[in-house]
């Protein structure tokens, strides 16, 4: 503010001037990123929240928007299918997070030990991460095919199954199948982070505990798990956020079907907005989804320490 009164460059001490120049340069470097994020994230975010208060039906034209307040939200609350959508979302978020975590933790514990070819196994285990989700779905749908799939063939031949199962359309097997493929596609990220956590635990701790007579289970519950807790908490929060918004995995596998049996909120927003062209209503459901994920985002941000 004082800048207007006295000419700054002449009166301020040199140190302050360089400081200020540094700040200006620093801000300038951020400008391109902020511009892009402003155009593709911030503006659309504002628009989305605004649209959720309007009735916008794409087929009647882009510009016909009628303000209806919170009616879109009321409509969702009164939708007889809403409990199903919410339950599906709960199943997917909890089941998806838990299954990925269990696979990742098991593998991290196994490969954290002294094991032959550990680096090779580790490399192999992360490859699903590089497979495009479309191809993942393609392969798994072929394996899980009700008539010609290899899984049915093997399970019936070995005697585990009495008859062929339509994995992705049977009410009993639908979610287990989705969660299994979802775990396959998504566990590598958690695995890598848990593995580096496990490897970061000093060996001396285990040695000392063993001398004191601790067995394998005690080592796990008393040393490994407590020391991994911060990493685990962060990973679980991230995973919940990712599962809440996940669309592609569900869409390529089942497209939310059969019927609406595997429709979570994210595919629901897509169907409402781009199949039925109810953009305002779709945005309202999306805002509800964002509200849910905001809770976990805040928890996540509170865990992350900035060293700026």
């Amino acid at each position, binding site marked *: 503010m004082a800048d207007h009164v006295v000419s700054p460059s002449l009166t301020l001490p040199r140190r302050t001037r360089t*400081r200020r120049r540094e*700040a200006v340069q*620093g*801000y300038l*470097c*951020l400008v*391109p*990123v902020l511009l*892009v*994020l402003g155009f*593709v994230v911030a*503006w*659309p*975010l504002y*628009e*989305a929240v605004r649209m959720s208060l309007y009735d916008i039906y794409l087929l009647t034209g*882009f510009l016909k928007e009628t303000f209806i307040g919170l009616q879109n939200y009321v409509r969702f609350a009164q939708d007889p299918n809403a409990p199903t959508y919410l339950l599906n979302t709960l199943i997917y978020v909890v089941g998806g997070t838990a299954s990925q975590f269990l696979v990742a933790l*098991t*593998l991290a514990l*196994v490969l954290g030990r002294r*094991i032959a070819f550990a680096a090779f*196994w580790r*490399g192999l285990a*992360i*490859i*699903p*991460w*590089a*497979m*495009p*989700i*479309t*191809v*993942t779905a*393609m*392969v798994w*749908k*072929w*394996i899980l095919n009700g008539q*010609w799939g290899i899984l049915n*063939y093997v399970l019936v031949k070995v005697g585990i199954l009495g008859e062929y199962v339509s994995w992705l359309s049977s009410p009993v097997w639908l979610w287990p199948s989705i969660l299994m493929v979802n775990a396959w596609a998504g566990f590598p*990220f958690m695995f890598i*982070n848990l593995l*580096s956590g496990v490897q970061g635990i000093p060996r001396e701790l285990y040695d000392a505990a063993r001398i004191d*007579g601790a067995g*394998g289970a005690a080592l796990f519950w008393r040393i490994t798990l407590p020391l991994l807790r911060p*990493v685990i908490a962060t990973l679980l929060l991230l995973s919940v956020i990712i599962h809440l918004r996940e669309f*592609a995995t569900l*869409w*390529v596998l089942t497209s939310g079907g059969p019927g609406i049996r595997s429709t979570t909120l994210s595919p629901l*927003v897509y169907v409402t907005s781009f199949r039925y062209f109810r953009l305002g209503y779709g945005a309202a459901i*999306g805002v509800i989804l*964002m509200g849910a*994920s905001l809770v976990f985002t805040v928890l*996540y*941000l509170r865990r*992350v*320490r*900035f060293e*700026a």
Partner: protein
Amino acid sequence: MEAARPRSVGGRWWRRAGRAGTYAVLLGLMTWVVFPFLWALSTSLRPVDTLFTLTPEWLPRPVTLENYRWALAEPHFVIPLRNSFLVSTGTAVVSVALASAAAYSLARFRYRGKNAVVAALLGTQMLPTMLLIIPIFLIYARVDLYDTFAGLILASTAWTLPYAVLLLRSFFLDVPVSIEEQALVDGCSRLGAFLRVTLPLSLAGLVAVLVFVFIWTWGDMLFPLILAKNIDRQTAALSLFNMMQSTRGATNYSGLLAAGVLFTLPAVVLFVLLQRPLLEGLRAGALKE
């Protein structure tokens, strides 16, 4: 010590059983991880008329490359494949170029509001894509970015930027400030010091971020699904899904899987070649505890 002896005898047996169990778990999980790759490969190598059988064989017999020939002659795969290269490369280059300036600023310059910027970037990463894409679609239609490569690259860039900035920042922070100060003393400008010292020293990180963004964009099907209409603009992640949904794809599943294998190849090859820096990235990216 007297009391410890029986324990250790039992301990040895337990340890051996534990070891066998460990390997059994490893083998089981690894079979589950690897099998889909092998099965895709195996299926893509058999004639399509041997596919739909009640007694499938483990290995293709006879082996044929017919499906690969089919995939590489199929315009609905080849054109989108080219588009995937265009959009992924474009996104990787633009995203890393913009991100490195911002990351350097966040790593080295002193000014107020840095924490807010980092928190905003982290928060942006968490937003549900599906909500934002509704207005993005409308905005794109208004400014003629709908169904263009530029529009796809812009959206993917925005989506990968927070990640790229945070990851590059952590790589820049690993370069000692003293080296940079030395360059400044030797007469380099701030920009010169960045371009000639910091950037080359974090080359591994730079490559890792490039590849990350490339692979992410390569596999993403949501942006093309909503922001691209024409086959000339669709990427392969989307066109393969569309083919899978059509009757043509459903009947020629071995051809479809051949296309899938070809489409997966670049991502997996990049990944295997650059595993070390990528692993570093997977670790550092989201988790700075």
